């Protein structure tokens, strides 16, 4: 017999828990759900857009009645549970229904707090919490004119905006001088106040409500200062209280909320609780992002996997009032120990404030221009040391590094047919439609459904913005602990640690030990795992070609017509007539349709048939060439300029050093591709300052620059340090590359890696700590011992069968 699980509370947190549970252990429980509201489960957050007339109730259903049927979940909707009998382990509802349980999940949410003033119980005085409230507001707006919203917080402003759009004359009454004082400082509040007034809302700031009066329904609101205002409808939005009466009456330990531990268990081990009704480490909740995290953890324990822990993190807020751009997170007021960076342009209605403590960002308020909200939030969550970027960070991510230009404008202003993802031709409208039709919450989900940002990823920021503005803060923006892929909940870092700590030495072993959901992994995690194995156990691990993307598997780049390109290594970009003649002969022999000089100072032979690859490689190998790894997450090119050997400005032998560096680093696998350049003087003709590491020669030595990127998002390098000799330059390069190999996430280039860990961190380990630098370099040299065999020669000699058909039938 299956165990019985009963859920009380058919809302966002409880149902998310069930969804997560069904993914993990679909057959484990016989599930029954009680919901006081007479519907399936809906997206409560979206009540604001419904009130504003931007959405319908049908559009905000998450799980309709059919879903419950399809998943064999019994739903008692419209029934309120009135008693929990913990001895008999059963619950009773107001209509007499009795359900026994083995495990009970409480997700009763919260109740709106109603000011205890005379008249608060008059008809026409309501809260803003559920569909019923929205219905009342919509009805009233048809027959009445004057609305008063008490409370100028997030909810109050969304209610006021909606009622105004329904044609009512709305006044917001707020107790303090600052609107949304939980989320804004007074400067941002002033700007918002001005804009909301411009939209037609009225405000009574610093007004305390004393009573409400009327004969049969509400007519007036009276204030402590003696003034009063006419009202046909009063909406109270002054706060919420965890809904704990039921739990309390059953003797479950409650303080402000139902007290739970890190596994979401209450003091009764058979009873769990999630959502706004809980209190976790003395904190209560009012936004969905943390509740969804709780849901994951709780599901994990209900499925008896027993590994997850809930750790509360910072949350961020946005206001869902069309045309108002607002972002706030963390401690935005600060104290004596914090410093503020403030930008204000009142004419453009833009205000930004960053609060910094000990070189870490701890709070953000953005008003009017929220493009960089996601980025700041990420810096906060990662605890990144911002001392290096603080000068420019207020101006946004695209001002970090002086040639960059990242995601541009706020997406709110874009029309529906604006193309967001250039790779897959996905427009803004496609994305917003998919988000609301399929109830998507995360970037990954949008990726899966629309392919937006599924390719080059440069539009991920824009997609996140669209998500954020479509969903409000019901949006799990790039969680800092991001699961590697759908096969696991573990992040890249957690997987890497587990590989080391549990000594996992191959992919099948890892998949079993870390309980991957898919026994073979998938096309996204397998290449990553293969890399982590290679970099963790360079001497022992046997590479798994089947876990490599085709290009790396066959050592050539696949082209759109299924042919391949071949790029031989040309050390430092220097060649000679003999090599060129060999390339010419080989190109003719295999009828290569296109011979092209690449952007990396070498020659690309495009349009080669797969069966010809091994033959061609054998010929190239005879002529002295090795693979250029143009296909690999590995060292690509070392670009050089002519340098002191010829150039009238050259200060050092940049060409010679480039060739030495390439001979040292070729063949190494890295988290993403790795590019190097050496320029002979600060004129920098080899473009060293947009490479993963670049050397700029000067009279007195060699400047080392790191973390540059051309490509999708240009980032100029950061200056790492200056060294005096070639030998030192080589050692630093080896050490730096090794640090990246050990710390970088798979498919993370050095630019985002350095932004994640901070330049200081890299300097500390590579420049300041000599012993550590030598150790890093040593590890690099050691793993190179196994890496520098030419894969082309090897495959041409030993693995020809990989390149030819198994058979030809007529």
């Amino acid at each position, binding site marked *: 017999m299956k165990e019985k699980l009963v859920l009380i509370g058919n809302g966002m947190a409880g149902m998310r828990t069930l969804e997560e549970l069904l993914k993990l252990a679909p057959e484990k429980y016989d599930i029954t759900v009680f919901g006081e509201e007479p519907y399936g489960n809906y997206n409560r957050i979206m009540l604001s857009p419904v009130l504003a007339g931007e959405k319908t109730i049908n559009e905000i259903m998450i799980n309709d009645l059919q879903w419950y049927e399809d998943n064999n979940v019994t739903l008692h909707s419209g029934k309120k549970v009135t008693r929990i009998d913990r001895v008999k382990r059963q619950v009773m509802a107001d209509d007499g229904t009795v359900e026994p349980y083995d495990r009970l999940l409480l997700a009763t949410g919260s109740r709106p707090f109603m000011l205890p003033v005379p008249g608060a119980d008059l008809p026409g005085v309501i809260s803003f919490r559920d569909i019923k409230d929205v219905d009342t507001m919509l009805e009233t707006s048809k027959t009445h004119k004057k609305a008063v919203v008490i409370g100028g917080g997030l909810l109050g402003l969304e209610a006021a905006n909606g009622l105004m759009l329904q044609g009512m004359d709305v006044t917001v009454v707020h107790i303090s001088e600052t609107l949304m004082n939980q989320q804004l400082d007074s400067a941002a509040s002033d700007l918002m106040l001005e804009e909301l007034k411009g939209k037609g809302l009225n405000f009574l700031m610093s007004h305390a409500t004393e009573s409400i009066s009327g004969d049969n329904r509400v007519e007036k609101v009276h204030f402590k200062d003696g003034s009063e205002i006419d009202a046909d409808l009063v909406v109270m939005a002054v706060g919420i209280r965890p809904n704990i009466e039921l739990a309390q009456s059953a003797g479950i330990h409650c303080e402000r909320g139902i007290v739970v531990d890190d596994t979401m268990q209450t003091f009764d081990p058979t009873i769990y609780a999630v959502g706004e009704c809980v209190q976790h480490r003395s904190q209560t909740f009012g936004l969905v992002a943390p509740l969804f995290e709780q849901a994951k953890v709780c599901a994990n324990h209900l499925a008896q996997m027993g590994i997850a822990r809930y750790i509360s993190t910072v949350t961020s807020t946005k206001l869902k009032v069309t045309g108002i751009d607002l972002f706030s997170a963390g401690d935005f007021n600060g104290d004596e120990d914090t410093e503020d960076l403030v930008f204000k342009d009142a004419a453009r209605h833009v205000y930004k404030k960053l609060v910094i403590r000990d070189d870490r960002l701890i709070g953000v308020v953005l008003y009017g221009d929220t493009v960089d909200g996601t980025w700041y939030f990420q810096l906060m969550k990662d605890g990144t040391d911002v001392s290096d970027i603080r000068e420019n960070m207020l101006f946004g991510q695209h001002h970090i590094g002086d040639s960059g230009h990242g995601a541009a404008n706020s997406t709110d202003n874009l029309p529906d047919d604006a193309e967001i993802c250039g790779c897959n031709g996905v427009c803004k409208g496609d994305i917003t439609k998919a988000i609301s039709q399929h109830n998507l919450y995360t970037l990954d989900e949008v990726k899966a459904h629309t392919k937006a940002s599924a390719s080059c990823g440069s539009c991920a920021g824009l997609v996140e913005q669209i998500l954020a503005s479509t969903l409000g803060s019901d949006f799990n923006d790039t969680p800092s602990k991001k699961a590697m892929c759908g096969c696991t909940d573990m992040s890249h870092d957690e997987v890497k640690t587990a590989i080391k700590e549990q000594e996992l030495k191959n992919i099948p072993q890892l998949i079993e030990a870390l309980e991957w959901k898919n026994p*073979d992994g998938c096309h996204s995690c397998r290449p990553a795992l293969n890399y982590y194995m290679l970099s963790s156990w360079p001497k022992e691990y046997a590479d798994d070609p089947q876990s*490599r993307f085709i290009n790396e598997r066959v050592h050539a780049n*696949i082209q759109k017509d299924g042919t391949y390109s071949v790029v031989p290594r040309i050390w430092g970009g220097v060649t000679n007539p003999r090599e060129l003649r060999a390339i010419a002969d080989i190109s003719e022999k295999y009828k290569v349709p296109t011979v092209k000089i690449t952007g990396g100072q070498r020659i690309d032979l495009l349009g080669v048939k797969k069966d010809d690859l091994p033959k061609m490689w054998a010929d190239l190998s005879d002529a002295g060439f090795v693979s250029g790894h143009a296909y690999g997450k590995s060292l690509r090119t070392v670009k050089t300029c002519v340098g002191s050997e010829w150039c009238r400005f050259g200060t050092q032998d940049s060409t010679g050093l480039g060739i030495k560096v390439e001979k040292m680093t070729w063949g190494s696998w890295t988290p993403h591709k790795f590019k190097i350049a050496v320029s002979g003087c600060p004129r920098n003709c080899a473009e060293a300052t947009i490479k993963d590491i670049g050397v700029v020669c000067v009279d007195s030595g060699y400047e080392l620059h790191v973390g540059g990127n051309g490509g999708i998002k240009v980032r100029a390098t950061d200056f790492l340090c200056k060294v005096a000799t070639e030998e030192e330059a080589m050692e630093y390069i080896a050490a730096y590359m090794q640090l990246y190999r050990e710390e970088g996430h798979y498919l993370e280039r050095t630019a985002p890696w350095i932004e994640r860990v901070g330049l200081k961190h890299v300097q500390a380990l590579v420049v300041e700590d000599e012993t550590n630098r030598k150790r890093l370099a040593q590890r690099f040299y050691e793993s190179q011992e196994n890496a520098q065999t030419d894969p082309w020669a090897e495959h041409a000699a030993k693995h020809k069968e990989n390149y030819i058909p198994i*058979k030809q039938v007529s």
Partner: protein
Amino acid sequence: MSWTEVGPLADIPNKGSRVLVTKDGDVAVFRTAGDEVFALYDQCPHKAGPLSQGIVYDKRVACPLHNWVIDMESGEATGPDEGCTRTFETKIENGVVYISL
């Protein structure tokens, strides 16, 4: 049903594939982790990418060009993508793979 011999199962890499050239075009013959064999017309329903070159997991293959994931049993694209490629029946006898073209 007439069966055509493809070759020994051992000649197809585990979690990999080999191509069978026929007069009607290439057929990708896949071998899964569990040594099951599937065959698909070697053209992705998206933009005709060679599925034989993709990463194989479970009973699926991810197309090398733009990562559509094709179910090898049905030939259908999975998830949000829509499209279908032809499938062929296969069998293994005494370690030798046969296909019905």
